[in-house]
């Protein structure tokens, strides 16, 4: 595939559209799912199964006035939601959904996605700092310390996978896992490493994804019973809408990465008919788990979160990294 | 048990007027007394009440200066503070401050300490140094009755608006 202007524009538009539609309908799915868990019907008035709810919510948000609090840093205040959305969309560019569906494959795709993921927290910091609100400020500081703490175990587990695959190319990582589910990195009995502790790595990576995307039980950045609404306390209108979309876009990216790194990407569990549908199935199962977790658990505190990261996740992921390295040397 | 002990301890506050039997009888007779007759304000002293009727055991009326002493006795006996409140006896031109105390264990003893103050110069020492929990109760009594608690760290209205200068529970208060 040649890199033409048309290709790039098309890829960006598709990425934005994918992110937006996903964000809108994941909100719907979240509300319906939460409602079912709590034995309510959820949104069911607008359209069949309430399916028209997300576009109507979007229209409502767009129709509202964007208020900028007095004394706020105007430039950063407006830039922050855009900055939140930007890395989320850019990450989509390099994610391979199947053998052919990828906007631009790179041989350092893993690196690029983590670079953009790290950028995401700066937008939270900008939002919290610029809105001149103590709650927002506290929340953004929490969000940044959380990201710093969770980037480490996340990267260590990713290195484990990269070490097994021997490549930073996302395509290559998926190719390495082709075959049945026993080749997947989550439980690689037939894979290269034979490391039976890989499910642990998967759990660590999944936990880190929850924390990176500011999802419950690690939603300290918005901790609504403590910090009102966290970093977006002062945001209304589409500013809030963009943060909301970015959150869901980040969830999609986190789940994509989990699928690619651990669940064999577009490969079928039994080696039959690999294709994008398997990817989508795994992706949305993971997202459903995100939603399921959110409506089950209470929130941790900042010290609980940091303790978990530094005392449990980092030692265990380091241990697993060493073990994998050793096993790769042996086999 | 504890009632007897507390009674003896509180009696030391009234060296002259040790409780006589007449105090008790006056009180029980009050139920049958003619209601029209003006009830004289009680003299300071300790009265043992019938728990079944009044819901408390000991009732000590002390002078305003003796409040700290009386409350210290109760604090040493491990009483906890239930509430502080006031009563406006407008006919006697007096304000009463009532302190309720109880204990956490099964040896039940409810003690009421009360003091009568002149309505125009209602001042009583604070007990916040002994019972930290008296803070809000005293603030409340202050704003409702205008009773000053001398030495209170923060005697501003609690339930009423911050700038309230009226005392709604006084009998001559008109909204």
């Amino acid at each position, binding site marked *: 595939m040649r890199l033409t202007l048309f290709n790039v524009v098309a890829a960006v538009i598709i990425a934005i559209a994918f992110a937006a539609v996903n964000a809108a309908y994941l909100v719907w799915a979240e509300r319906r799912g939460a409602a079912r868990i*709590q034995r309510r019907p959820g949104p069911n008035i607008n359209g069949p199964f309430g399916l028209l709810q997300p576009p109507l919510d979007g229209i409502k948000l767009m129709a509202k006035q964007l208020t900028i609090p007095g004394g706020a840093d105007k430039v950063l205040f407006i830039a922050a939601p855009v900055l939140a959305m930007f890395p989320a969309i850019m990450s989509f560019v390099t994610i391979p959904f199947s053998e052919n569906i990828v906007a631009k494959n790179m041989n350092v795709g893993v690196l690029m996605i983590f670079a953009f993921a790290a950028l995401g927290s700066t937008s939270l910091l900008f939002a919290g700092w610029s809105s001149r609100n103590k709650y927002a400020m506290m929340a953004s500081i929490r969000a940044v310390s959380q990201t710093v703490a969770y980037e480490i175990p996340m990267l260590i587990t990713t290195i484990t996978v990269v070490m097994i695959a021997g490549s930073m190319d996302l395509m290559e990582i998926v190719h390495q896992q082709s075959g049945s589910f026993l080749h997947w990195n989550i439980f690689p009995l037939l894979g290269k490493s034979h490391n039976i502790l890989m499910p642990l790595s998967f759990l660590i990576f999944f936990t880190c994804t929850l924390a990176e995307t500011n999802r419950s039980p690690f*939603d300290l950045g918005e901790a*609504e019973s403590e910090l009102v609404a966290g970093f977006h306390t002062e945001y209304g209108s589409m500013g809030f809408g963009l943060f909301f979309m970015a959150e869901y876009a980040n969830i999609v990216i986190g789940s994509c990465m989990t699928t690619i790194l651990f669940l064999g990407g577009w490969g079928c569990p039994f080696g039959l008919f690999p294709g994008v549908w398997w990817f989508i199935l795994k992706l949305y199962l993971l997202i459903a788990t995100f939603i399921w977790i959110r409506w089950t658990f209470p929130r941790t505190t900042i010290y609980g979160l940091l303790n978990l990261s530094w005392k449990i996740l980092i030692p265990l992921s380091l241990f697993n990294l060493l073990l994998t390295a050793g096993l790769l040397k042996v086999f | 048990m504890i009632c007897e002990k507390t009674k003896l301890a509180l009696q030391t506050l009234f060296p002259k007027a040790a409780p006589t039997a007449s105090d008790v009888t006056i009180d029980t007779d009050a139920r049958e007394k003619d209601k029209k007759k003006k009830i004289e304000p009680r003299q300071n002293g300790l009265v043992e009440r019938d728990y079944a009727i009044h819901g408390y055991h000991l009732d000590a009326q002390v002078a305003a200066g003796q409040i700290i002493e009386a409350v210290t006795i109760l604090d040493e006996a491990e009483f*906890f503070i*239930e509430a502080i409140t006031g009563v406006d006896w407008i006919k006697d031109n007096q304000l009463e401050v009532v302190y309720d105390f109880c204990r956490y264990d099964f040896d039940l003893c409810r003690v009421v300490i009360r003091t009568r103050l002149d309505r125009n110069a209602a001042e009583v020492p604070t007990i916040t140094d002994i019972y*930290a929990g008296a*803070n809000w109760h005293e603030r409340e009594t202050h704003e409702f009755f205008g009773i000053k608690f001398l030495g209170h760290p923060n005697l501003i209205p609690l339930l009423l608006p911050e700038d309230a200068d009226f005392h709604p529970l006084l009998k001559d208060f008109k909204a």
Partner: protein
Amino acid sequence: MSSPIELQSDETFILNVGPQHPATHGVLRVKMEMNGEYIVEAETVIGYIHRMHEKMGELKTYPQYLMNLSRMDYLGALGYSHGHVLVVEKAAGIEVPERAEYIRAIMVELNRVASHLFWFGAFVMDLGGFSPLMYALQDREHILDMLEAVTGSRLTYCYFRYGGLYNDVDDQFIESARKFIPRMRKSLKKYHTLVTGNIIFRKRLEGVAPLSKETCRKYGASSAVARGSGINFDVRKNEPYSVYPEFDFDVPVYHGCDSLARYNVRMDEIEQSLRIIEQGLDKLPGGPIMPKKKPKIIKPPVGDYYQAVETARGSFGVRLVSDGGKTPYRLKLRSPTYSNMHLFDESCRGMLISDALAFMGSLDLVIPEIDR
């Protein structure tokens, strides 16, 4: 762990939590001086919905005041009415038929379960878990349905009368109450698995917000706040009133002194209340619900009277000063949360804000009841 840190700098800022804040459950304001996420000093500001129930008590006749008590605490309204009718009955010397007393006890306990269920849900919501609130509300709805069928209202009951009750319970109520008990026990098991056992939940509460016995005593704390600190104090046992001596129930006491202990006490209290309801339904005697002879106009003799009852939130006391008239001369309402809330200021120093708000949740606040 939330141990007080050494302050790195003296740069503090004021955080105004409330009067509208998701964690304060009403209009309560706490002015917090913060050092980062740590609270240096806190000052609770109350009185936003002060309605002067005490003055209303002086202006209204005794029967007219009945409905005020349920407006004090909208979650456990019957317990407060119970205290009020008991003190007036004691003062005016009104005999209460046994059946009425039993029904009162059953109703108060049902109300207590409802109140604790709501607290449970709201408390877990303070900690960020949403679903338990909905489950708790489902169970609470059954209680409210039962109470509505008998009393005619769902929240602000005006059910107790001096000497008896507004109306009698029917077989349908007894049947649904009997059905409710095993249902509630099953739900309790669910709550314990979903919430009590949850590691995140335990980590948030264990060892957080320690309250010593001495602090409880100095502030006059009662209910689960005292019982979570190892104080065996329950007015129903310590100062038996009504028909409570007839029932066989335990007072759960935990010695953890932390938020988890207070949580455990309340969860165990639900079970104990169910036991009381069960026994009450078994023992429920027949007979009238209003006394045969009752003064037409209630005029308690001169004197002052005190009655404490154990409501869902703790020891509620009513001090009635009567001058022999148709209206009380003075009616003091000692609300339990007032004392429980008071110790927040002192105890939350050095705590993280998230822990402090969890602590506030564990106090089981109902703001109208503090403000009266």
